[in-house]
């Protein structure tokens, strides 16, 4: 099995199994989505009282990851760190894929996504963070896409020039017939990629701030209210970006059976240290939030849900242990022993932890206050906070599509690191 994956060639059975299971996930998601259109959107929700659940948390997870990837990639060609430029293409491609599927996640959650496109433009509400978020992220997607195009144009042009027939046609269409391979054109590409990269970073950070503001502005949700989330989201974006990039790079190399060596290896270990540092900062943020929150009686009730309530298992096990503490230890150990496997494990653990954390923060925030004229506690009104099956299907479909896009991207686009 391992060797089958290792051959990394498109004809290996493992490759087909992988692709078909991703397609199966997409079919599952599509089924749930069609069912919700045919019956009612209710099949996606576990309670009318908690309207934002996994679809929204998945959205937050993916767009935060995308901003993080944009931050990491901008270290390379915006801030001029030569060593990071090595991973630029992969990083920007991941940023593009995650933002696209993040946006799909929220679009599927809306009652009428088609109206959002129209009325966001005709009757904008400048006082609404959601309006700002949607608008800024739209620009962000545009700039990330432009940046990516300029980064891979040369590679695609080479493919176009070296292939024939249909393949050649498709590639030259993808580069808009700019199949020029001269060093001047490469320089030009770099210039434009950099401009688009700066804009993507500016719009990404601003959009991200308004994403935090969607929660931070909501005075009627004490757990979210305040400047904490806009700021925290930025820092958590940074470590999510590292986690995605490290895991995607290592997995891709493993699957292709290529060795990670030289500059790339060194860069990965350097990244792992920054990654560990960011995780520590994240942990400090969390302790601050919980500590100060407990002092505020209005927030304390929500926080107790995490510390010692229905969310305590996801909180202690996933957020704290799997999502922060263990990865920090593993990263430091791996950096010391120079073990690539450790980096991979830690990154995947962080991604899982953060995915759960996004769900927790969202749902915990929605528990109090809950309207109950007879004074029933929220935990009686909503006995379980577990997402329903149909919603899980849709999320699975989204991830299926995301991984499929990445796999196809790796296969057909010039994302390779130029190690020489």
């Amino acid at each position, binding site marked *: 099995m391992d060797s089958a994956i290792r051959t990394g060639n498109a004809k290996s059975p493992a490759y087909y199994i992988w692709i078909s299971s991703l397609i199966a996930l997409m079919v599952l998601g599509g089924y749930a989505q069609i069912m919700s259109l045919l019956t009612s959107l209710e099949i996606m929700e576990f309670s009318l009282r908690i309207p934002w659940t996994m679809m929204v948390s998945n959205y937050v997870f993916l767009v935060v990851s995308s901003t993080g990837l944009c931050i990491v990639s901008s270290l390379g060609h915006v801030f001029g760190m030569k060593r990071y430029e090595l991973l630029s293409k992969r990083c920007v491609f991941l940023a593009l894929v995650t933002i696209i599927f993040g946006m799909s996640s929220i679009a599927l959650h809306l009652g009428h996504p088609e109206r959002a496109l129209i009325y966001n433009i005709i009757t904008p509400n400048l006082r*609404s963070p959601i309006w700002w978020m949607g608008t800024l992220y739209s620009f962000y997607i545009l700039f990330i896409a432009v940046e990516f195009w300029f980064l891979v144009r040369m590679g695609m042009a080479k493919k176009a020039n070296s292939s024939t027939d249909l393949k050649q046609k498709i590639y030259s269409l993808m580069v808009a017939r700019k199949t020029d391979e001269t060093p001047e054109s490469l320089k030009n590409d770099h210039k434009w990629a950099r401009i688009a990269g700066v804009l993507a970073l500016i719009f990404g950070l601003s959009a991200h701030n308004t994403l935090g503001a969607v929660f931070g*502005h909501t005075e009627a949700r004490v757990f979210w209210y305040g400047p904490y989330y806009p700021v925290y989201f930025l820092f958590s974006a940074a470590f999510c970006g590292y986690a995605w990039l490290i895991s995607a790079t290592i997995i891709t190399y493993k699957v292709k059976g290529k060795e990670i060596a030289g500059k790339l290896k060194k860069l990965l270990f350097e990244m792992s240290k920054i990654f560990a540092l960011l995780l520590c900062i994240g942990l400090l943020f969390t302790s601050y939030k919980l500590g100060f929150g407990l002092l505020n009686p209005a927030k304390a009730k929500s926080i107790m849900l995490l510390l010692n309530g229905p969310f305590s298992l996801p909180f202690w096990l996933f957020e704290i242990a799997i999502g922060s503490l263990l990865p920090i230890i593993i990263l430091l150990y791996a950096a010391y022993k120079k073990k690539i496997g450790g980096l991979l494990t830690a990154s995947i653990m962080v991604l899982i932890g953060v995915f759960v954390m996004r769900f927790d923060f969202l749902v915990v925030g929605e528990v109090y206050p809950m309207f109950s004229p007879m004074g029933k506690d929220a935990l009686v009104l909503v006995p379980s906070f577990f997402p329903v099956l149909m919603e899980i299907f849709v999320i699975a479909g989204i991830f299926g599509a995301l991984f499929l896009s990445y796999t196809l991207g790796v296969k057909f686009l010039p994302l390779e690191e130029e190690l020489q």
Partner: protein
Amino acid sequence: MVRRTTKTRRQFIKFFATTSIGLSLGSSDPAEASPRKYGKLHDTTKCIGCKRCVSACKRWNKLKIDRDEELTDRETDLTGKSWVVVNLTRDKRNREDLHYQHWTCQHCIKPACAGVCPVKAIKKLPEGPVVIDEKKCIGCRYCYQACPYKVPRFDFEKRVTRKCTMCHDRIPRVKPACVTACPVGALDFGVKQEILTKARKRTEEVGGYLLGEHEAGGTDFLTILTTTPEDLGLVVAPKKVVNRDLDKLRITSYGFSGASLLTGLMYMYSRTEEEETEETEEKE
């Protein structure tokens, strides 16, 4: 030409004077006094819990009637199809003291829901009602999160958020459906200022609490409770405008400071040299 200038100047002065007076008095008062502004009142001390208001609401607004509407004292919650609910409330300190409460959108004077709707689907009409435009709503449910009372609820079939409209399609010619249906006069509707005066007087008489006088910066639906909302175990809204724009700006500015800090750190990091691992590796 000259006349026009004077007129504009006069308009400007008038505008300036009214705004500054408005600001100094606090936002709600001048608006309250307008004869075109209406309010609704519920008196829990008179309500007998017959739920005719609920049925009338459903009939007028063509909402689906569901099981919960039966005459039981089971707790009922607002939904996309139940814009008004009547529930029994109990005073925590005096468990014998039970009253029915007609619960619906409070029609805040400065509605938090309208402030957060990304597409301006929610409007505060000059007559008082806060209304959702169902043809515009994109179903994001942000209004639900922002409302201090959690009133706007999602309708899963129509895929939009819906709530009480204070029968804006009837008033002021005809009173809201619920008010007309009430057999004992527990509900009242009229010019806001008059309703407020009446409500204050009645609250004093029964020694109760007037919900909506100050909550969320004042609301156009008022409820006379026998005691404080805390004692009744109701959702307690702050006694100020919820989601003020100034607070929003303040919080956003923290976010931008965070972003600048992060960019600064990235810049500092980008100036660091590549680590010296190569040498050590080679030595090894």
